């Protein structure tokens, strides 16, 4: 049997599997399968769901995954089993996390950025500079029902007293309160106290030591703590999800967070792109939006769940192409949360669904901006820093036609300058991330194989010109034999230019003096070569922020016209 690798992702509603095999010496996706996730209930249900998934893969591909009775077994005992299996997980409640640090700027903020990739919900922050007395501090640590404690803070060789106090309190928290799930402790602070913390807390395998997240004053490197965080994440999930420990043991794998898995690949793409821009991934699912951004060798990400309230409902309704009364709009959103698998079958439902996705994307980007001020998102102006490509994935994108998915992403992100929008229809970034440590060439070769759908090239025109004024002239070169095409773009326009099938299209951009197309300066233009894409080249001269009519009917009509321009 050929050498294969298998990746599993246990999502909130679906558990997916991808089988990779070598074809003509190059790694490629050989097959995929999915089953509904079954993490609630007893371990038997979970095991059976994974068994069913593996059986689907085994039946249609040349690989052994189950024993002769169709059961999960020690994978090492099977001839023809994959060389390795990767496993990622986004299912399960976020880990209730406490951050403990010596200062807001140098330890708490870096810790927030660190844990946001690991499906954590920060329920307690203890800033040791606030000089809480030891009793109050202990009380907070005891009453916050924390599953993961992350201690940072202090330069190596720096002050130790406050850290020693909190370490002593953590020892009490760990040993005095009986728990169903043993909490995990990650220490990434002053290294001179690392051994002290380990011997004092006496948490055995529940204690995870890492290098100091603060490499120099004002400088952080979260990657130094990733290994410890992954261990803590896995130990918590193995305790929380019945049956997971046995499956992980039989498949000889490790379970990592899905966002972290995708983040590995986003980071790789950024490092290998060489265009000086960042790489952004947005996974838009029914209930959450994950944003992963790699830029300047830095990786940030979060999984954002938007709480429904009147303000966001009003904002979303204002972005709907359908006229709907507020009660029906709100009822749809609340009912949608009860049924994540729901498919919008009518145009009215689709209009609500997409306007809600736009707001969810905006709020997720704003949340990442709050986490990392260098990210480059402004709630009214959009994504002001350059990211290329921007990769879309998730169930919400799969539910949309290409031009619909592009439109909601464009309105949600509001990019500036020139960028490419891709769609990861098979969620391969997540699948590859968990396999990357086993065989880096696998990820490289699969990604080299143009596995993403090219949705569009976006050219955003930054201008202060009033609507209707010319901002850009575009000359399209479709080849020597073809006549040149010219497009005049006016402020307020959203224009689609089709690309040549299976070929490159050249465009010459001539912006007006005060129009910026992202080539360095306002008024500066030049040739741009774009690849074939599903929607084509989209020239967005609508301005930032979007200028939408106040009148609901006029606004819906304008939004509808924009969508129509992109494909109907």
């Amino acid at each position: 049997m050929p050498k294969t690798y298998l990746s599993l992702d246990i999502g909130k509603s679906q558990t997916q599997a991808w089988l990779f095999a070598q074809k003509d010496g190059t790694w490629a996706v050989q097959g995929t399968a999915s089953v509904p996730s079954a993490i609630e209930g007893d371990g038997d249900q979970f095991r059976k769901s994974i068994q069913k998934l593996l059986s689907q893969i085994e039946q249609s591909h040349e690989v052994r995954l189950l024993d002769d009775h169709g059961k999960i077994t020690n994978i090492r005992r099977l001839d023809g089993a994959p060389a390795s299996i990767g496993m990622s997980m986004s299912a399960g409640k976020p880990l209730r996390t406490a951050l403990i640090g010596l200062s807001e700027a140098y330890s708490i903020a870096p810790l927030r950025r660190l844990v946001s990739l690991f499906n954590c919900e920060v329920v307690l922050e203890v800033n040791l500079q606030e000089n809480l007395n030891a009793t109050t501090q202990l009380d907070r640590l005891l009453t916050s029902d924390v599953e993961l404690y992350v201690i940072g803070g202090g330069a190596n060789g720096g002050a130790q007293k406050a850290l020693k106090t909190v370490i002593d309190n953590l020892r009490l928290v760990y040993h005095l309160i009986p728990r169903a799930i043993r909490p995990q402790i990650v220490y990434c602070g002053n290294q001179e106290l690392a051994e002290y913390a380990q011997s004092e807390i006496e948490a055995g395998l529940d204690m995870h030591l890492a290098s100091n997240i603060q490499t120099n004053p004002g400088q952080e490197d979260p990657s130094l703590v990733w290994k410890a965080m992954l261990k803590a994440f896995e130990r918590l999930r193995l305790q929380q999800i019945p049956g997971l420990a046995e499956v992980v043991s039989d498949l000889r794998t490790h379970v990592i967070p899905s966002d972290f898995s995708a983040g590995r690949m986003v980071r790789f793409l950024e490092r290998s792109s060489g265009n000086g821009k960042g790489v952004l991934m947005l996974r838009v699912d029914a209930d959450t939006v994950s944003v992963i951004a790699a830029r300047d060798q830095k990786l940030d990400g979060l999984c954002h769940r938007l709480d429904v309230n009147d303000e966001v409902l009003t904002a979303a309704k204002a972005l709907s192409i359908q006229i709907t009364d507020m009660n029906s709009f709100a009822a749809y959103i609340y009912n949608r949360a009860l049924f994540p698998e729901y498919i919008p079958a009518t145009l009215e439902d689709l209009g609500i669904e997409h306007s809600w996705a736009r707001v969810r994307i905006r709020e997720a980007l704003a949340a990442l901006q709050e986490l990392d001020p260098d990210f480059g998102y402004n709630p009214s102006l959009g994504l002001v820093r350059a990211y290329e490509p921007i990769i879309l994935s998730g169930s919400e994108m799969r539910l949309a036609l290409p031009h619909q998915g592009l439109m909601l992403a464009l309105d949600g992100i509001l990019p500036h300058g020139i960028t490419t929008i891709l769609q990861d229809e098979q969620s391969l970034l997540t699948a590859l991330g968990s396999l990357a440590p086993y065989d880096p060439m696998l990820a490289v070769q699969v990604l080299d194989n143009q596995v993403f759908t090219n949705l569009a090239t976006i050219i955003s025109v930054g201008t202060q010109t009033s609507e209707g004024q010319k901002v850009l002239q575009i000359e399209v070169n479709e080849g020597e034999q073809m006549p040149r095409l010219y497009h005049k773009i006016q402020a307020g326009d959203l224009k689609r230019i089709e690309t040549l099938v299976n070929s490159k299209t050249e465009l010459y951009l001539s912006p007006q003096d005060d129009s910026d197309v992202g080539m360095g300066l306002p008024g500066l233009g030049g040739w741009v070569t774009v690849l074939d894409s599903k929607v084509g080249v989209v020239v967005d001269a609508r301005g930032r922020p979007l200028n939408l009519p106040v009148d609901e009917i006029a606004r819906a009509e304008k939004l509808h016209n924009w969508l129509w321009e992109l494909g109907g």
Partner: protein
Amino acid sequence: MSKVIIQSGQPVYKQVRLPQPGTVLVRTGQEVEVGDVLAEAVIPREFQVFDIVNHLRIPPNRLEQYLKRLNGEAVKKGDVIAQKPGLITRIFRASQDGKIVSMREGRVTLAMGERKLQVRAPIAGTVVELIPGFGAVIGLTGNLVQGLWSNGLNASGSFTRLEFDFNDPQQREHLPELVDKVVYSGAIITPERFRLIIAGKPAAIVLPSLVPGLIKEALKSPVAVMSLNGFGDQVIDPVSLELLGEMQDHEVFLLSDGKDQPAELVMPGEGGQNSALFDEEVTLGLGSMVRLLGEPYLGSTGRVVELPDQAERFASGLTAKVAVVERHDGELIRVPVTNLLLMEVNPKD
């Protein structure tokens, strides 16, 4: 696929567990009444951390000679834990009965008092399974109506269907007696009407659906609230209505899975024809009763009459596997399978 059970003579199981390990106080087969304690955990009520070195101004290397108690010792209120003699004697005494749980780096930590975490039976029944260290599963048989949303509160009381015309100004002052009752209303309940019902001090309010403007208020309400179908302006289906009719003037229990989570309405009764031992997993098939989840048919019910193999394209442009549903009025509707809620009902329904 999501499913709700709306059946009489239905086995009902309610898991009751502590958030942390403790002692289970019941045994398998034991009959329990509402409010019986099933499990408890005892934890210190509070802690006190005292920095002896700094507060008594003791040199750290001479700490041992001033400590009067050892780690792990029980102490009574007023007991001296550390004492520094001198012109003015400095003393650290236990402020309450408790135990010394830590002596490190010149700090003494006392655990004081005790707090019991208890979980109680929300409904009478038989303990059918123990969850070692955490709690138990209570089993009973009865009429069961599962709902999709609740505000997290459990309640019990006599079930009453509120026949009241909210639009009639003459009736406004004459709301029926609702005290401690589980009240069902099929009318559209606005926040104003909700407050009117709450003023009658019912034990719980059950609605076919909740208007979005009421969600915030329902979550804060001290009265248990349950929505059968979710949100919006939905009417109750005939099967649920009939079963609720059987509950009239009987004691029922509203058991919530938590805030913003599903709940179920249970009327304990005699064992029916169902038995959990022989239950088969109910799946969608021809003849299945379903509730439609999307507009314009939101909340209406019918039976599946066809399950085509081929996926179909809908008005939104999306393609999905479909079911053909015949509604009670005879209308045939093609709906994505994902937009159906399977209803497990008695065969006669």
